[in-house]
């Protein structure tokens, strides 16, 4: 990668380990693009990173208002990191609404870059800000860099063929250029990206590049910073990397999972925030033989997936909490007919419609228990954006090997977050090829749809198979023959058999490993998206001299073997969850004699590692 000539190279260059930037502006300001470009460039220069977009509430609010603010936070570093960071070091605020909404999170002493061009009376009013915060002392304690980006970009593109409106649309690239300068990043990757994106409108590409370069070269602004920074490459494990978002990783994993099983992937889905982009991504992979069906509702979506599995495809369905509620009856059918099925729930704030664009982990109990009758379904959860790939494959494996529906939980934080993904060795991926019953001739033994294999799974005979014609359905089945049976003992046998089969999955999953000391005063136990924050918090504790152990649980139902013994090695087990303590409840029910401390937070957003660090010292001081 060639390095750009360095304006402002006379200013002191300071090394930093870890920087958190938040870009914030109006929905129309292109903050997501800005953030994504900064991320890609940082990835390219070898930083570790994690990102978190913060979309405005569902409907595009009027420009300039607080509900219209769109944010993108990224953390890039030369050390191993696992979260987009608690509090930004730098806040880019494109208008007063963006400032007002985000300033509270900025680190004390942090930098605000404000686009003064958008702080007019009118702008302030739209943002419901009484006094211009750039002009009173409300920003005391922060370093405020005021730049009239509107004007700067107009100047930079003076004489361009673009309309004024189009020129102003280049603001975000001016800003990006400025940030590139501040953190000594190359411009080339973005220039390349722009040229590709606007292949058909080269003048737009060039205008944006010009704007970006202007920001990069704005010496007079640079002065205000009194220095620039460098974040060297991180020491990442060797390999090929790519940046990946959570939903994207899930889509790739689901497609791969089907392929590893030798099956066609069939996705039945109905759009819902924050799960929709899995469907969107999978719809774009038709050349992988993926069939996507956008159903009329969530019920039809899961039913179609079940139908597809009946024919020998790997049926899948993706949704969020309210959609899971709707699917619960059909999930019971899936349990009864014992066909493979992967059900993805990208959790969001609840109850009901709740906070659709915010994150939460409050659907765990629903996943484990939310069906009529005894209807056991294995449940696992994704830890981070890239983990979605592995988890999706694991969900497919369980579904196929055990002939069962599987619930895979993710959440809004993971769905939209991104991180570098070290690409797996494709040949080393697990293989769990599905086996179909072979056609049988006249004299052959009758196909027994509810006989059992070594994992208690039933044999899969698909339409088109001669001699294995059979009927399945939601009424209780007779063991072996699969015929309707109202027999009392058979019912009990089947209820227990289904239970045993799902509990038997334990044999195929590892006991999770403790990170840090293998026993002691405190274990921080997490599941799903708290993963990164818990590790960050533990590392911070370690740096401060307190060793705490952590444990991440990928498999939530059945619970893996060995936990009882493992828990026994710790005096207390702290469980931070973005709900009111759902995993803690499950664990208490299973392992009543350990000291579980539930640490709930239900604010529609992830934990800060600080919060966990504080909680840890609270507990240890007691």
């Amino acid at each position, binding site marked *: 990668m060639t390095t750009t000539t360095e304006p402002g190279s006379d200013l002191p260059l300071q090394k930093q380990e870890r920087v958190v930037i938040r870009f914030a502006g109006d929905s129309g300001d292109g903050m997501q693009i800005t953030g994504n470009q900064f991320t890609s460039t940082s*990835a*390219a220069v*070898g930083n570790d990173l994690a990102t978190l977009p913060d979309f405005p509430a569902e409907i595009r609010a009027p420009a300039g208002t607080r509900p219209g603010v769109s944010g993108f936070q990224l953390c890039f570093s030369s050390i191993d990191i696992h979260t987009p960071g608690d509090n930004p070091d730098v806040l880019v605020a494109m208008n007063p609404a963006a400032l007002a909404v985000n300033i509270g999170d900025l680190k004390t002493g942090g930098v605000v870059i404000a686009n003064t061009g958008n702080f007019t009376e009118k702008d302030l009013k739209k943002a419901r800000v009484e006094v211009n915060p750039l002009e009173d002392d409300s920003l005391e304690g922060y370093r405020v860099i005021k730049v009239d980006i509107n004007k700067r970009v107009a100047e930079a593109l003076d004489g361009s063929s673009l309309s004024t409106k189009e020129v102003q649309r280049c603001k975000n690239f001016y800003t990006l250029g400025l940030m590139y300068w501040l953190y000594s990043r190359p411009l080339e*990757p973005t220039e390349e990206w722009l040229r590709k994106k606007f292949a058909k409108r080269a003048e737009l590409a060039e205008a944006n590049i010009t704007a970006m370069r202007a920001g990069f070269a704005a010496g007079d602004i640079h002065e205000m910073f009194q220095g620039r920074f460098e974040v060297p490459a991180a020491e990442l*494990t*060797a*390999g*090929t*990397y*790519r940046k990946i978002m959570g939903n994207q990783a899930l889509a*790739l994993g689901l497609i*791969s999972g089907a*392929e*590893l099983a030798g099956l066609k992937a*069939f996705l*039945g889905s109905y759009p819902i925030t924050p799960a929709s982009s899995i469907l969107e991504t999978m719809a774009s*992979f*038709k*050349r*992988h*033989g*993926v*069939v996507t*069906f956008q159903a*009329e*509702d969530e*019920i*039809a*979506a899961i*039913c*179609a*997936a*079940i*139908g*597809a599995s*009946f*024919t*020998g*495809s790997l*049926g899948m369905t993706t949704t969020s909490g309210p959609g899971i509620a709707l699917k619960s*009856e*059909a999930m019971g*059918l899936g349990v009864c007919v014992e066909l493979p099925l992967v059900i993805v729930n990208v959790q969001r704030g609840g109850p009901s419609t709740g906070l659709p664009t915010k994150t939460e982990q409050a659907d765990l109990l629903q996943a484990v228990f939310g069906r009529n009758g005894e209807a056991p379904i294995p449940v696992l959860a994704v830890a981070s954006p890239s983990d979605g*790939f592995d988890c999706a494959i694991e969900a497919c494996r369980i579904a196929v090997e055990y002939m069962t529906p599987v619930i895979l939980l993710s959440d809004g934080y993971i769905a939209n977050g991104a991180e570098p993904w070290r*690409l*797996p060795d494709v040949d080393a991926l697990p293989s769990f090829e599905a086996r179909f019953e072979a*056609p049988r001739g006249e004299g052959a033994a009758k196909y027994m749809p509810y006989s059992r294999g070594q994992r208690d799974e039933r044999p899969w005979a698909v*339409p*088109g*198979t*001669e*001699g294995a*014609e*059979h*009927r*399945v*359905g*939601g009424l209780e089945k007779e063991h072996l023959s699969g*015929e*309707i049976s109202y027999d009392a003992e058979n019912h009990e046998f089947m209820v227990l058999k289904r239970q045993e089969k799902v509990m038997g999955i334990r044999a195929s999953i590892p006991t999770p490993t403790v990170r840090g000391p293998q026993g002691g005063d405190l274990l921080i136990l997490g599941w799903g998206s708290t993963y990164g924050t818990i590790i960050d918090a533990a590392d911070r504790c370690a740096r401060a001299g307190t060793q705490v152990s952590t444990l991440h649980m990928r498999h939530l139902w059945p619970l893996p073997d060995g936990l009882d013994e493992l828990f026994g090695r710790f005096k207390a087990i702290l469980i931070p969850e973005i709900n009111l303590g759902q995993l803690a409840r499950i664990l208490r029910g299973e392992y009543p004699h350990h000291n579980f401390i539930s640490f709930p937070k239900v604010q529609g957003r992830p934990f800060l590692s600080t919060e966990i660090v504080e909680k840890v010292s609270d507990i240890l001081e007691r």
Partner: protein
Amino acid sequence: MADTTTLTKKDFKSDQEVRWCPGCGDYAILNAVQSVCARLGIARKDTVFVSGIGCSSRFPYYMSTYGFHTIHGRAPAIATGIKTANPDLSVWIATGDGDGLSIGGNHLAHILRRNLDVTILLFNNQVYGLTKGQYSPTSPTGQRTKTSPMGSIDRPFNPIGFALGCNATFVARTYDTNIKHMERTFEAAARHKGASFVEIYQNCVIFNDGCFDDVVDKGVRDDRLLDLVPGEPMVYGAGRDKGIKVEGFETIVSGAEDASVWDAAAASSAPAFTMSMMDENPGHPNPIGVFRAVSAPTYEEVSASQVAEAIEADGAGTIRDLVYAGETWEVA
């Protein structure tokens, strides 16, 4: 897909004891379907019967083909998955007036508009049989049932009108006491490429006995039923002396000689719609037969063709090119 061996009706009988009430109209329907399956010559292994919940939805158990007795109202959704995932299968749906038009109305509507190549048999007995006699969305207003002791206050659906409103490509009606007519209708439905919807007037001897007697009873049916046969004049009556003449949007009961010729393939479904409401006019017969039969691309075909096209354009994907895509970088 077609099997060369000669199949007989018996081949399609399963080993399950049929458990409908003695005298239930469902028996005859089962018989007719088994005959038609034999005639179609599609192997048992390639045939799938899908149903929801209800007396009628027990249907798949009695067919020796593949079968799926799903959950209440969802048969069209499950069938959509089956047919889309494997377009080579011959897929039938058995549903009731409750299963198909009450809880399952939306899935029925959507499978019709999407035009999946499935054959849908709606057993209309104007009552919920399996749950022992509550009114259904096709029960006439005023019908007294367990849940409508003072008479049902709902205006009923007209299943034919509903299907037409959903833009269905094949819409027909038949009745349980006329094996020949059933067989003819089912066969036409099964051979139609696209979603075929067949309403069957079905008697429930237990909870709604004689619900269609005023039109299907042996004594009256010749004069009370008009069989819509595409391309034939609309003639009916014991002596085949009466006819239906279309004038504007109106239908007129005329002599056989003045009868209009029935066109089920008209571009607009308005004529079919007119016929579907004809019996509301005093003195008019109740129409059965084929209301509409037009061709349109099927969902599963187009779905498969997009996949094929994508593969042709860019080559079949592997896990490797799925994963190693986009902007990647190396760390040494």
